[in-house]
């Protein structure tokens, strides 16, 4: 109250019943602010303003002549062996309850487990590894559990593996079938006869499966690496074999051979063994070899498009360059007014394009080298050489040398001195807006925008 005095708010609040009434109405038409409509809808939100389905449009049931009642009645099921009586709701029509077996009784299926007689056992089914008692037990369990061998194995009194149990069951059943059949031809089509259970194969399969499943992540990665390495080696070997270029470096061949030998033994090799020769391949393969292998792989194709060939060669040439460098090459091409992909890719055009790209790469590399050298040089100059008088003079001379050198090569109106020094430190690639629009003597068109410091 005092607070309200202080704030100057009215003492008497709005009449409460009015507030309460207006609020639910308002709330039902507006969602609270601060959360989006969709989020509010997740919480149940606001009910739709209009009912989405008109109740009167719902399908009306045709008026039925029959009198339907629902009654709680007892029933029996043929699937049960005992006489248990259960109750359920039954739809009674005109006082007549439905007849017939329990509707779900038909789903009570079981497996037809063949039971043998004792004489049959003596005649056909004896086995050194199994006693009659065990075999009887096995068949009892099979019938009881519908051939669910996992359960049967659990409940089998003596310790036997699932595969052993399966083997015994299937071979016994097969023998009985064949023995009982009037002629072998008749049972030849029976699945038990046609496809006998192969114990060794099954054991092996399960063992391999569990091995694969239980591989640790580390092992998985190692396997994948080895496979990828082997694939790469096989491919490069194919290309190298097809290559008629004599300048394919020999060490790579040797490296490939040893790698191949290492891959031979199978998946028991350690990846390091494979990677070592692979590592020697990488540095020894120069760009020339890259080109050679590209040419070789192109020649292996019976037919290809010129544009495809160019793409491959460009890729091979830029294989040593990073993404940023490639982007700079493309930027340079654009500045020179050259299409990134030639519009008329003839043999000559593609060759020129490729050479141009290589030259731009060289140019960018040289620029970078220059940048580094200059950075080194400037730190050299600024370094602590104040002690020796000779060096001070030397550094002075070096700076002068720079200053006079640069204007010689750029002949379009650069002010020597501070400006130049500053520019040298900020070495940028081509493609920036030029500060000197006029070109010297207009000797040739300059579609390329360049900074003086680029030179």
């Amino acid at each position, binding site marked *: 109250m005092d607070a309200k005095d202080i704030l100057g708010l009215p003492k008497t609040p709005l009449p409460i019943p009015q507030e309460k009434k207006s609020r639910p109405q308002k709330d039902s038409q507006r969602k609270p602010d601060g959360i989006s409509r969709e989020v509010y809808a997740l919480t149940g939100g606001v009910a739709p303003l209009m009912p989405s389905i008109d109740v009167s449009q719902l399908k009306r049931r045709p008026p039925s002549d029959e009198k339907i009642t629902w009654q709680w009645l007892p029933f029996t099921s043929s699937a049960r062996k005992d006489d248990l009586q259960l109750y359920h709701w039954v739809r009674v029509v005109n006082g007549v309850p439905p007849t017939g077996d329990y509707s779900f009784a038909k789903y009570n299926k079981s497996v037809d487990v063949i039971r043998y007689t004792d004489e049959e056992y003596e005649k056909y089914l004896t086995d050194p590894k199994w006693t009659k008692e065990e075999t009887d037990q096995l068949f009892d369990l099979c019938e009881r559990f519908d051939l669910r061998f996992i359960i049967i194995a659990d409940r089998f009194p003596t310790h036997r593996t699932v595969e052993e149990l399966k083997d015994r069951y299937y071979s016994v059943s097969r023998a009985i079938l064949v023995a009982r059949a009037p002629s072998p031809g008749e049972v030849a089509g029976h699945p038990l006869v046609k496809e006998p259970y192969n114990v060794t194969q099954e054991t092996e399969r399960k063992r391999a499966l569990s091995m694969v499943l239980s591989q640790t992540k580390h092992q998985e990665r190692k396997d994948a690496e080895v496979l990828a390495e082997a694939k790469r080696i096989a491919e490069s070997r194919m290309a190298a074999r097809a290559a008629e270029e004599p300048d394919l470096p020999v060490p790579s061949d040797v490296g490939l051979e040893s790698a191949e030998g290492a891959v031979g033994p199978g998946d028991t090799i350690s990846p390091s063994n494979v990677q070592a020769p692979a590592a020697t391949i990488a540095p020894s393969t120069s760009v020339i070899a890259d080109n050679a292998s590209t040419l070789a792989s192109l020649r292996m*194709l019976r037919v290809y498009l010129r544009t495809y060939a160019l793409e491959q060669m460009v890729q091979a040439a830029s294989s040593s360059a990073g993404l940023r460098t490639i982007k700079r090459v493309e930027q340079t091409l654009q500045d020179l007014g*050259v299409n990134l992909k030639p519009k008329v890719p003839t043999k000559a055009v593609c060759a020129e394009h490729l050479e141009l790209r290589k030259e731009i790469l060289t140019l960018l590399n040289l620029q970078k080298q*220059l940048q580094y050298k200059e950075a080194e040089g400037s730190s050299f100059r600024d370094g602590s050489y104040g002690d020796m008088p000779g060096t001070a003079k030397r550094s002075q001379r070096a700076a002068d040398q720079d200053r006079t050198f640069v204007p010689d090569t750029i002949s379009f109106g650069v002010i020597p001195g501070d400006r130049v020094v500053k520019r040298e430190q900020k070495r940028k690639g081509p493609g920036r807006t030029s500060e000197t629009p006029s070109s010297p003597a207009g000797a040739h068109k300059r579609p390329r925008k360049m900074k003086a410091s680029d030179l």
Partner: protein
Amino acid sequence: MPQTAIEAQVEDGGSASKPQRIIKLSKTTDDSDKKGTNKRVKDIEVCVPIVYGTIAFYLGRKASESQSHKWTVYVRGATNEDLGAVIKHVVFQLHPSFNNPTRIVEAPPFELSECGWGEFEIGISIFFHSDVCDKHLDLYHMLKLYPEDESGPQSTKKPVVMESYNEIVFPDPSECFFARVQNHPAVVVPRMPAGFSLPVLAPVENTNEKGRGDTKDHPLSQWFLNFSEADELLKLASARQQVQAHIVKLRRELSVIDGMSQPLKPASSYECT
């Protein structure tokens, strides 16, 4: 592929008979049948320059919701020569909304016309004759119906043309193919190396039911674009010149800097060049 000596037949006149393109070859000394097509010409590249693309006309008054444009997709020789000697058939893969979207064109001119309203990517698969190559080539082209500048209503007279130039390269052609197309106008064949001997044949005339296979007087030929390598070569040459000049300059600068960073000597003997 059986390769035995067969007759060459040159038919003149426009008689609509079945295409008979068989070549007389000197029988190779090898016994095995396959050797004929498998004997390849080393170090010689046969090249077929092609242009492929679409031309689309707006139908104007005759346009309906579902068919507003009439367009043609085609593969033609870059100089409008007949490609039938090299290409056996072309399969155009259209949008699945078309009836039978896989259209096969078995004789030149390799083209297909349709009506529609939508732009989509057309798959173009080029299949070659058996002595040329058993692998086919896949190209893709985006059908363009609407012009770049959307100002004003579309004209029914001026179509939207999108063409791409490319060259099909056969790095080591079979002797049979090489012999066949030595003097063919659609094919670029380098000069034979010295000492090479192949029977020089008269180019086989194409007698297919469509009439001529070249597109020189094609109804749409007025819209065909001209692809001249001269412009591009010029541009490339000038660009290379510029780059080379800069490289020279940079190399000079680098050598200067390298010269400067000599080990410390007494100042008097230090010489800057």
